[in-house]
């Protein structure tokens, strides 16, 4: 290479600085939105926040750690279940939701040891079996009353407007903390390791990346995030029926959001969640055909557009709004006027 070649390593670009400013502005607006939003809009926004959490968590697991799980409903179900359980023990339901997410994180630690030894499809279905197992075990708890289910009655202590506001704020806070945490994590030394693993596991290991412990960190982090989403879903739905929470449909939604938005990119997962939210709002009522459409779209994206919508945008324009990597810019002598 020419000695006069100069280069510059950059992380922030003008676009990404603007994007972060927009994100912060949106967060502030979202935080004060309850003062003028109607109850319906707030419930919908809460659900959107839950979807974004789910999409970003599944993307972190599959897109960054290379772990495709068909059993993430395990954590949705456990998050909701432990919220019910803690409420039954007299814990404030809002504290209980966060507590449930932490409990699930603790459970994910020992679970990660055998599961992370599984490869590819074995991990995918292995997680599904663990989820089925947890579903059955939760059914054994008399508190849940089998598939009849139970409700988070302790939420009734709060009157409806206050309850709605608190759930909304908790969802927003969870979203910001989880996404912010993941963003920082991906930009840290660990993040470099994670992206190295995503690109080539063997090569990463050969340059000294601690592959399994890095994957474990992501596995546990996403377990906490998905459990939080499950707890929030319970707070908006109020009733806990094990079948609905331990349903593989959750994973189908997560896969759809991430595949359509763009696997392996931070922005893609968020975009996918927003698209899914819009589709659900418009077509959710069509029931079964809606599910057929979701499955078919996921299939088509997996085969024809594996990078998803954001991946294509990124490839064509080089645009990065929430940069977790670095970019190298060469200035070749004479190349610039």
């Amino acid at each position, binding site marked *: 290479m020419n000695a006069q070649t100069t280069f510059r390593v950059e992380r922030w670009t003008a676009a990404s600085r603007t994007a972060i400013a927009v994100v912060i502005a949106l967060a502030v607006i979202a935080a004060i939105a309850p003062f003028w939003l109607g109850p319906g809009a707030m419930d919908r926004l809460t659900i959107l926040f839950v979807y974004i959490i789910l999409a970003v968590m599944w993307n972190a697991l*599959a897109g960054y750690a*290379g772990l*495709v799980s*068909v059993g993430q409903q395990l954590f949705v179900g456990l998050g909701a279940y432990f919220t019910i359980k803690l409420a039954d023990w007299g814990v404030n339901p809002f504290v209980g939701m966060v507590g449930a997410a932490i409990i699930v994180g603790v459970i994910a630690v020992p679970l990660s040891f*055998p599961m992370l*030894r*599984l490869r*590819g*499809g*074995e991990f*995918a*279905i*292995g997680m*599904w*079996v*663990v989820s*089925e*197992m947890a579903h*059955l*075990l939760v*059914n*054994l708890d008399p508190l849940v009353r089998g598939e009849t289910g139970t409700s988070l009655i302790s939420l009734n202590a709060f009157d409806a407007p206050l309850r709605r506001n608190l759930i909304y704020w908790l969802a927003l806070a969870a979203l910001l903390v989880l996404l912010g945490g993941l963003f920082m994590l991906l930009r840290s030394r660990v993040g470099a390791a994670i992206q190295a693993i995503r690109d080539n596991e063997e090569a990463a*290991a050969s340059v*000294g990346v*601690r*592959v*399994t*412990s890095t994957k474990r960190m992501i596995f546990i982090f996403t377990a906490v995030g998905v459990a939080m989403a499950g707890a929030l879903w319970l707070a908006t739905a109020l009733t806990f029926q094990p079948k609905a929470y331990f349903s*593989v449909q959750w*994973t*189908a939604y997560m*896969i759809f959001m991430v*595949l359509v938005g763009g696997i392996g990119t931070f922005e893609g997962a968020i975009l996918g969640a927003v698209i899914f939210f819009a589709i659900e709002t418009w077509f959710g009522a069509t029931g*079964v*055909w809606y*599910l*057929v459409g*979701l*499955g*078919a*779209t*996921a*299939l088509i994206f*997996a*085969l024809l557009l*594996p990078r998803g919508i954001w991946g294509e945008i990124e490839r064509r324009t080089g645009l990065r709004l929430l940069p977790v990597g670095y970019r190298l810019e060469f200035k070749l002598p004479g190349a610039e006027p």
Partner: protein
Amino acid sequence: MINTIVQGLLLGGYYALIAAGLSFMFSVMRIINLAHGSLAVLAAYLLLVLAQNYHLSPFVGLIIVLPLMAVIGFLLQRFILDRAMQAGQLVPILATFGLAIVIDNVLFELFGANTRSLSNFIGSLSYDSIALPGDIYVGELAVGTFVLAIVVLGGLQLFLSFTRYGRAIRATAEDPDTAGLVGINPRMATAVASAIALFTVGLAGAALGMRGTFDAYAGASQLLFAFEAAVIGGAGSVWGTLIGGIVLALAQTFGAKVSPLGFLLAGHGVFLVVLFVRVWLAGGVRAFLRRPA
């Protein structure tokens, strides 16, 4: 006690039968087909339609359904799996999962939520049984399924070992590029393997429908049972699959004696225990501690 063991053994035959195709596909293509169970349920519905609308006994119906399943397998490989396999390790999982969702929900849309069965169309075979010494009765259908599982597993083994196509498929599994150099068409070999796998899925679907009930969303549990049987037996090993099916079924039948949820709990439990023990033995605690990872 002995009766429970015998019934468990025979149920294991069914699991081995449904696991055969999954295990075969995994061993020759390194793909776990997440639509496996849904495709078996699809075959059962096809037989049901033939029986209800055209008065074809499910056994006659198989003459149509099995070749059809093989064609579906061929097309599945050509249009979905081939492309997915090239896109990386994770894409086949995602693609077949998407396919499973499509199949399940289309079946639900077409046939509704009612549980169906083929048992009404096979005459007395659904309840005929053979008396064994010791006051044990075994269903003829269950015995037939068990024998069929052995025939299918043995047939796959013989096919891979002794036929030209079997060798081509194994060579492609080892290294598709080199296989191509020695005159094998790797795309053809994998498509044929997929067709064979789906042929066995058709048989499993017939067994599923004849021995009990099924509904549009039954595919997921069939996939899990097949996967558990294959993994317990050691994924990719033909006779291991039979052992795996039997171990799974024995755990379930004994579990069912303990509690209503015991059937599934014990089945998943034995799978996880086998998995954890194998992981523990393979890695060893010491190797785990020494590893930088």
